[in-house]
């Protein structure tokens, strides 16, 4: 593990389990990663693999029937270290972190904004609780934020309700809301899945600018490999509650080693590689979360499977930055 000063948040062996339907769902089962200041960490993986749960866990936004079982979430605030997992769920300290130090954007801007309040009101709320600005200053700042996010006529738009915003504009408003207090970390959970392709690009550009201008650390959850290639500094690949491979964008995208990462990359067309790409969907489907394989979670769908895969592989380092959770990585890496 690198111990540099640039780490904004580090997650260590995090486990979050769900207890709905009288069962125990090990949604996140031992995840470790670091988010660096001014860098983008992309988390990729098929749906249901625990990406959103990881994000919610960091913000302690989990539903009642779930809890953090083990592990640490250390938030490096200035020179302090705060163990987020030890804070009370909706307690005062946690609330102070949310929205001001760590902010989050959600997948569907259509449902993420409260329909009965104006957009301005919802952005101002954030400022009201985390700053000492006066009412007037808050309003000015809200308008400025909307303007920064590229919303036309912000003075007018600020008093409109979310339903008169288009999807892309709502997501911009969400980002304005998240960025209101200049958070150290921005968590974006599939921020563009619900939007048109052209708008997606604009939103990502916006986020990339924010990262550069404010040195914000971004954790971007996505399953769009194109986006990963474009934006990521670091990449973590998740599968069934584990990170199976992580490293810099170069490590993961150019030298994918875990069979799952390879399969994932093979399953999506890459822009610019022309028409006759060899696209192979990943064979099989994700297992029932209540009936997970013992050992390596990917084993049942893996071409490289051996008996040793019945034991969960440890994390190994391929290089200083490139980590992997696979027994056979040495063979695959050479291959």
């Amino acid at each position, binding site marked *: 593990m690198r111990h540099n000063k640039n780490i904004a948040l580090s997650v260590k062996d995090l486990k979050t389990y769900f207890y709905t339907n009288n*069962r125990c769902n090990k949604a996140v089962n031992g995840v470790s990663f670091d988010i660096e200041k001014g860098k983008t960490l992309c988390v990729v993986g098929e749906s249901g693999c625990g990406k959103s749960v990881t994000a919610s866990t960091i913000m302690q936004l989990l539903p009642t029937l779930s809890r953090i079982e083990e592990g640490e979430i250390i938030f490096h605030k200035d020179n302090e270290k705060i163990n987020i997992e030890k804070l009370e769920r909706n307690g005062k300290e946690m609330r102070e972190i949310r929205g001001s130090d760590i902010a989050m954007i959600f997948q569907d801007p259509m449902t993420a904004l409260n329909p009965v309040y104006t957009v301005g009101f919802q952005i101002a709320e954030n400022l009201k609780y985390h700053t000492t600005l006066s009412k007037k200053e808050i309003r000015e700042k809200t308008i400025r934020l909307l303007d920064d996010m590229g919303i036309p006529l912000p003075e007018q738009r600020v008093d409109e309700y979310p339903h008169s915003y288009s999807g892309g504009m709502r997501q911009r408003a969400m980002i304005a809301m998240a960025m209101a207090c200049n958070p150290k970390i921005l968590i974006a959970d599939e921020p563009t899945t619900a939007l048109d392709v052209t708008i997606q690009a604009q939103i990502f550009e916006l986020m990339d600018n924010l990262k550069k201008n404010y040195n914000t650390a971004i954790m971007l959850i996505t399953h769009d490999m194109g986006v990963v290639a474009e934006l990521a500094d670091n990449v973590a690949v998740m599968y069934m509650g584990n990170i199976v491979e992580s490293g810099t964008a170069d490590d993961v995208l150019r030298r994918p080693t875990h069979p799952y990462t390879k399969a994932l990359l093979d399953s999506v067309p890459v822009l610019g590689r022309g028409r006759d790409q060899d696209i192979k969907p990943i064979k099989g489907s994700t297992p029932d979360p209540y009936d997970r394989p013992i050992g390596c979670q990917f084993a049942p769908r893996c071409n490289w499977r051996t008996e040793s895969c019945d034991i969960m592989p440890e994390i190994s380092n391929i290089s200083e930055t490139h980590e992997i959770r696979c027994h056979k990585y040495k063979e695959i890496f050479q291959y």
Partner: protein
Amino acid sequence: MKKTSLDKKFDKLRFLEENNKLVSKDQNRLISKFLNNKLAVLGLIIFSIIILATIFAPLLTSYDPIRTDLRSMRQSPSLDHWFGTDNTGRDVFSRVLYGGRVSIFVGLGSSLMAALIGLAIGCYGGYKGGWVDVIALRISEIFMSFPQIILVLLLVSITGQSLTNLFVIFILTGWGGMYRLSRARMLSLREEEYVQALESFGISTFTICYKHMLPNALGPIMVMITLSTAMFILTEAGLSFLGLGVPLNVPTWGNILNVATDIVVLQNYWWMWAPVGIVISVFVLAVNFIGDGLRDSTDPSQQG
């Protein structure tokens, strides 16, 4: 950190899960969900007990519910007369049992009939539309602009008091809701792919409508049946209590309660009215528990 009861529950579940004790059961999900709802099961048990008790009334009591016995008037509860006797010496317990037969029959019967009629028209109307639907919709609108009890009273005043009339009146006031519910369900089902697939196979309207779509509309209807059963039983009781329901010579739950309009009875002879009031409340409560259980188990949006 201190452990809350939720934490303990989680620990237990986690332990069981890790030892593979929790395997998903293959039983019918609806039934198992219903059975998991303790209140619903309790409701079902009470419901069955009361129904069985009224059916087997002759075995449970030897008294005739309408034979007056002037030698034993207004006796308080005793081993002979469990709920005492009323103003004319009739055994209240046997009246509650036999009265239950009529009240439950009227409540359950009319709501089932109303459901049958509502479903038949609603399914067809919702699926096919056309003039049948338009007319039925208008008529149901008319019925539904009245508060239920006012409509019932109005119809009672027109048709006069009798058991059959009340039964018919309940059906008349009840079918509209069922019709609208099943119609709405059908309208949304109509758009589903399997229905369109069936249509493209050239299967007859009648078969698609009543054989393939109807079963999918039943869940909410069942809930509604329980609700209107509860409501009809309460309405019957209310009407008869006012002396406007079933003629007083027929024992029904409401008619038994009618004595409580007399302030002397109310104050001095609690056994003549309190037990039957409690029985009505408990029975209706049981029906509502069942309805709630059905709602939870048929509603796919609810989890946990």
